[in-house]
């Protein structure tokens, strides 16, 4: 363990408007498992994508075996012995195990036919190494997610990977599958492979990591050797920045619950039931790490993906929501995370986007009244300060912030009772952000209940009156404003406490 096999030195990467990585260092030694930890947006994935050849760094150097290495593409990374197992598997489920492992590099006979016996025999070697007991001829679709992941690892090994990057490999595995994956990782380490392991699950990190490298806001936050790894030490390093709190408390505090969600089970997390209430006039923040099940819960409440179980009541009356139309009719609206695909029809005018959910309001006998439509669209654009050349401009031509305001305009022209914002300011510039926060607060003041799902800690702490924290599909805690601190939220978000099941 004297010479590092990989050294990333002062790696920097800027995206328009953000510095994703600022002079980050990372060392990996032979036969070592390095865990990379950090909050959402801390720069873990960006750093790994640079190592994997997906992104090019703006500054810094990568040394492999003390030699400067130029990694300009995924194949450069592979040639340098770097394998990448992505969170979303890149497998072809119509091809067999062996075909997946050697895709594009099939052994040939006569120069153009696939040499199947050799293909299968070669793949077998790697499956054995990983202890994966399936036939190499099995189509991938017949394998479990965990087994497909092994095939991806086999592929990386067949490319002679000495450094294996694993991005959230256990996020869709069961507990036993996770256990066996961790065993495989330990075996690989014995065989001399180094592993960079990204995970939000601190328990796993504790079990297998030889070292933890923590990133925070695109910078190195510290390194923990094996002996010092614990929940608390990692969380302390992950947070611990000053958060600019411009929180304005509500002027009217009404404690009566307006919306009550009971035992809601989503299709993604079938055995986790979530329950919470939103009070009239409050902003309830939903914090959690990416994939904690917050958006799924929002989509279930809005009727996009009907929940498997659970009730939603409004003003004490249970309402049935089987489709977005039901939710809209009850005054429950969603501002979706994926603005460009779910929130707006980009190549249609702003006017048509605004009136789409309530066209009948601007129509008589089934015919749209163009004048009424123009009037409301102009009013909403003016009220929300939407910067657009005209209400006839296509929504796709507006900036991110203005597009978000158009999505808001769709709902504010109606009669909102509960507004669910899913990542309301993602990809939006600072000025528009402030405007959206102001609007949110003004809406709450007018008696609307607001749920704000956000992965931005600053936003959660700056805007929420209470914070619900989710982990793996369950609400692990609901914090009152005074209890809510970045550390308290992170502890709940990484599942330090047992899930609260009702």
């Amino acid at each position, binding site marked *: 363990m004297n010479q590092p096999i990989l050294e990333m030195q002062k790696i920097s990467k800027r995206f328009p408007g953000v510095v994703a990585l600022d002079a980050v260092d990372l060392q990996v030694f032979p036969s070592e498992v390095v865990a990379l930890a950090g909050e959402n947006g801390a720069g873990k994935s960006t750093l790994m994508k640079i190592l994997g050849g997906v992104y090019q760094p703006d500054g810094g150097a990568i040394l492999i075996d003390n030699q400067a290495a130029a990694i300009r593409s995924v194949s450069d990374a592979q040639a340098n012995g770097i394998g990448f197992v992505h969170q979303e598997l890149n497998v072809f489920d119509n091809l067999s195990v062996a075909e997946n492992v050697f895709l594009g590099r099939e052994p040939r006979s006569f120069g153009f036919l696939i040499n199947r016996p050799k293909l299968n025999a070669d793949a077998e070697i790697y499956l054995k190494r990983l202890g994966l007991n399936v036939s190499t001829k099995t189509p991938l679709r017949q394998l479990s997610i965990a087994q497909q992941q092994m095939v991806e690892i086999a592929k990386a090994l067949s490319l002679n990977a000495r450094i294996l990057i694993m991005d959230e490999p256990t996020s869709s595995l069961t507990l036993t599958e996770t256990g066996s994956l961790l065993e495989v990782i330990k075996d690989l380490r014995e065989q001399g492979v180094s592993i960079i392991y990204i995970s939000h699950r601190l328990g796993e990190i504790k079990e297998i990591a030889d070292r933890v490298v923590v990133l925070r806001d695109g910078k190195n936050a510290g390194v923990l050797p094996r002996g010092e790894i614990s929940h608390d030490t990692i969380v302390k390093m992950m947070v611990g920045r000053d958060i600019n709190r411009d929180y304005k408390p509500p002027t009217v505090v009404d404690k009566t619950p307006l919306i009550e969600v009971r035992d809601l089970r989503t299709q993604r997390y079938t055995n986790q039931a979530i329950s919470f209430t939103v009070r009239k006039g409050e902003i309830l923040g939903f914090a959690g790490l990416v994939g904690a099940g917050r958006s799924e819960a929002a989509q279930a409440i*809005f009727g*996009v993906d009907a929940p498997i179980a659970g009730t939603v009541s409004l003003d004490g009356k249970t309402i049935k929501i089987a*489709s*977005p*139309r039901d*939710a*809209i*009719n009850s005054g429950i609206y*969603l501002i*979706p995370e994926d603005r460009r*695909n*779910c*929130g*707006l*029809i*980009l*190549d*249609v005018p702003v006017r*048509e986007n605004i009136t*789409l*959910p309530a*066209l*009948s309001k601007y*129509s008589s006998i*089934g*015919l*749209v009244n163009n004048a009424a439509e123009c009037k409301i669209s102009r009013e909403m654009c003016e009220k929300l300060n939407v910067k657009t050349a005209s209400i006839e401009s296509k929504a796709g031509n507006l900036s991110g912030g203005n597009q978000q305001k158009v999505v808001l305009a*769709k709902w504010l022209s109606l009669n909102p009772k509960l507004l669910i914002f899913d990542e309301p300011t993602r990809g939006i510039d600072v000025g528009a952000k402030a405007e959206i926060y102001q609007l949110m607060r003004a809406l709450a003041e007018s008696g609307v209940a607001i749920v704000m799902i956000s992965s931005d800690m600053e936003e959660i702490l700056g805007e929420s009156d209470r914070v619900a924290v989710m982990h793996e599909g369950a609400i692990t805690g609901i914090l009152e404003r005074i209890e809510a601190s970045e550390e308290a939220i992170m502890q709940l978000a990484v599942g330090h406490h047992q899930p609260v099941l009702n």
Partner: protein
Amino acid sequence: MRKELGTFILLVVLCVVLAILNPSFLASANLQNLARLIGIYGIFSIGLGLVIITGGIDLSVGSVFALLGVLLSIFLVEWHLPAAAAILLVVGITTFLGVINGFLITKVKIQPFIVTLCGLLFYRGLARFTAGDETKGFGAAAGFETLQSLATGSVFGVPTPFIILILISVVAWVVLHRSIFGRYLFAVGRNEMAAHYSGINSDFTVAGAYILCSFLASIAGILLSFYTNSISPSSHGNFYELYGIAAAVLGGCSLRGGEGSIIGILIGTALLQVLQNLVNLLGIPSSLNFAVMGAVILIGVLADQLLRQRQAARVTK
């Protein structure tokens, strides 16, 4: 309107050239026949246009023409049903086929191409079986002359199918360009996900398009049956769905969905019929008929694409 302008100019140029090369193009008998055909083809092309705007397709229209022609002949000539009853039955049955298409596409979630391809094969077979593979017809149309005159007659020299097309176009224009349903058709065709998030019942909207398409096909099919006056079940209506699709595409409908207009579809229909007429009048071997149409459609779509690229380039500059 700018989108349809190119096709419209092409249509005008083609008419002028044709009139110069062969003045009998302007003979009233020729123009009347042309208008009659435009009437029949336009009606079902509008239906196909609606389906294409949702991002779908209906390949079964031609076979449905054969089936409904056979049924119409049996109802009128063999069963001697009253004209109104026969029409109602045929329109009802054909429209119901649209309900089946809509159900299979939106609820069972089979791709429109496959659903209607199966319809193309199935209804053709059914038509031939029902007719005993024999040609059916209406003969002298004894007892339902008025009905026949809807297809073959004229009012003040204007062929009735053309008048029916104009009436249907006006209604279709209002539905597509002014009604809530029309707005939903475009919304679902452009971005079904966003439409869903806006509370639009996209299944209902898409199924509606297929039902309307079949309804319009029933009207066009009845007119076509009387126009040909005999229905050979193995060939009647062959390729007609493709004429409709071609007219819609020439008129600015995108097969990706979300684009198109009634005026465009009408211009597209007229262009195809004038081309057909051109082949006849200029003495081009009729075996080249399809080749000429294929070439012109390709040129039309290419020109449209080039024009749009140039426009896009100008916008970004």
